[in-house]
């Protein structure tokens, strides 16, 4: 095909879409920054601008504000940011993989699978007197996430119905949660308190050491996702079109499974299962961007998930202070209506 007459038509929607992407991305950044700042300042002890500024200088080292900031609030903020983003991206990968807008690490039971193995790992290591390591937690979570994923894949190979897949995932989730509770019931008293708050979902237990372990893993996974953006785009059209675009579908599927499992495993290892972020955030982002192109969705989902979890964590800490809510409680209350609204509207659009 030789370029004949130059076609100089304008496609305003194309430019609008790029503009929209940049605006939305900027908006998410601003949200995340503002919420991050609020997360640092507000709490049982409120810090003023001055105290905040001082804590970051040499002089402020050792002050109460410094301790609150660097030992409690900063690791928690980083955890909410990184893990929230990871969860949203994991949800997007799963939605693409199963071509199912309802898929997500929580509904498919992947989070619960990871929760089960992590609980088992923590109980075993604590009982034998070993220290729990970040690496061990992630490995245990990855194993559990992989096992759940395996079951879900078995189901998806047998049934083609998107609804049945989700129901099976939820069942796997219930099953794993029940077994986890069983283990916790028979664990040592001293461990129960820790395990219990973790198994409900909370960013409070994440230390700076955990973050140092987490951050590189998450960033590498995220880079991997972005490298997969192009084949994922072809895969969204269906398997036959993906093959016809020159995609190694089997290889892509394995990569998607590994990456989504790893991302949600990291979250569960340190924050426990966090509900609805994996479904609601990609849905919301897709609507704002008005595109499903992975190259735009992946970075946007990450930032949106991060901002969403920063907000949820802020609410979890402040709403009924000094009582702290579990993170899943807040994300469910915020996320479930979003999912319902979007799903019913989607039905209408297709009717």
């Amino acid at each position: 095909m030789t370029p004949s007459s130059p076609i100089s038509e304008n496609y305003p929607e194309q430019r609008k879409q790029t503009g929209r992407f940049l605006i939305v991305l900027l908006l998410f950044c601003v949200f995340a920054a503002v919420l991050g700042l609020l997360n640092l300042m507000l709490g049982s002890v409120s810090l003023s601008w001055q105290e905040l500024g001082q804590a970051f200088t040499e002089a402020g080292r050792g002050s109460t504000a410094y301790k609150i900031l660097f030992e409690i609030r900063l690791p928690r903020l980083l955890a909410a940011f990184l893990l929230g983003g990871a969860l949203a991206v994991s949800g997007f990968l799963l939605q693409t993989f199963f071509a199912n807008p309802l898929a997500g690490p929580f509904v498919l039971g992947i989070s619960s699978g990871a929760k089960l193995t992590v609980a088992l790992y923590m109980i075993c290591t604590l009982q034998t007197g070993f220290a729990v390591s970040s690496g061990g937690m992630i490995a245990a979570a990855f194993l559990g996430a992989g096992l759940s994923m395996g079951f879900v894949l078995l189901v998806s190979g047998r049934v083609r119905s998107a609804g049945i897949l989700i129901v099976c995932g939820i069942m796997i989730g219930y099953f794993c949660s029940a077994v986890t509770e069983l283990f916790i019931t028979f664990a040592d008293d001293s461990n129960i308190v820790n395990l219990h708050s973790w198994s409900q979902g909370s960013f409070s237990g994440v230390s700076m050491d955990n973050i140092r372990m987490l951050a590189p893993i998450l960033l590498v996974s995220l880079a991997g996702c972005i490298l997969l953006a192009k084949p994922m785009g072809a895969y969204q059209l269906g398997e036959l079109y993906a093959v016809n675009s020159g995609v190694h579908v089997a290889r892509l599927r394995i990569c998607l499974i590994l990456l989504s499992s790893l991302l949600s495993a990291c979250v569960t290892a340190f924050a426990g299962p966090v509900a609805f972020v994996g479904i609601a955030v990609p849905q919301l982002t897709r609507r704002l961007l008005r595109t499903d192109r992975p190259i735009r969705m992946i970075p946007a989902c990450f930032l949106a998930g991060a901002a969403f979890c920063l907000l949820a964590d802020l609410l979890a800490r402040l709403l009924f202070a000094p009582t702290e809510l579990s993170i899943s409680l807040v994300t469910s209350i915020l996320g479930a209506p979003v999912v319902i609204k979007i799903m019913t509207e989607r039905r209408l659009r297709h009717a």
Partner: protein
Amino acid sequence: MRNSANPSMPDTNIHSGMKSVKESAGHAQEAAAVLEARDLCAGYGKKKILDHISFRLAAGEIMAVIGPNGAGKSTLLRTAAGFLSPISGSLYLQGSDISSMKPDQIARVLSVVTTERPDPEWMTVYEMTATGRYPYTGRMGILSPQDRQIVEEAMELLSVSALADTYFSSLSDGQKQRVMLARSIAQQPDLILMDEPTSFLDIRYRLEFAEMARMLAREKDIALLISIHEIDLAEQVADRILCLKNGRIQAAGRPKAILTDSCLEELFDISPGTYHNRYIRKT
């Protein structure tokens, strides 16, 4: 409409098992068949569906594959697309064995249009057409100005330029089919495989489809392999007809020679006389 350059050319009737297929003299380059199957057996896993199939498809030629459900029409197209690998025998795409080609090499030569259309949320017609450029873009899939030009030309050719900014999901079935054709053209193929492309279309769009298919073959010299249920449409659109039954080629040749009452009755196992009575065909 039909290729009438050589009215004296004998119609070829190929039965399964025969290896060589006589090509029409109108296509000068004997060797350069776009697609050639030699003694091809294919199917799912060990289950053989296509049973020793041989045929040749020349550049710019339209071949319609007809036959009862389960005869192997889709299997043939899926094997040709590289989605299934042959059990035995071989398929040649422009002279090279398809099983030795990489997926992206195949993608630059042939494109597919399937029965079930993708249903992406939030994808404009422009974006959908642009997915055809996939085999040509870089690691991140960013379109070059040349890619954009090709996409725009493809939309122009199928008269969907005006819909460029519309969301694909909001289109009618006929419009969607046009866009999927534009997408396959943007892939710059020499061969397009179409699996029952008219299934969901009403009569108006079916006629439109036949026109578009002929236009693509004529103007772009693209070969088309189309599996189709509508006999009348096959007759309108195809240069040659390939009749598949139980995974074997029952007959092949020019539509006039193939689409006789007796041949169709045998192909679809209908009792003699029924076809003509049901579907009154003016001959």
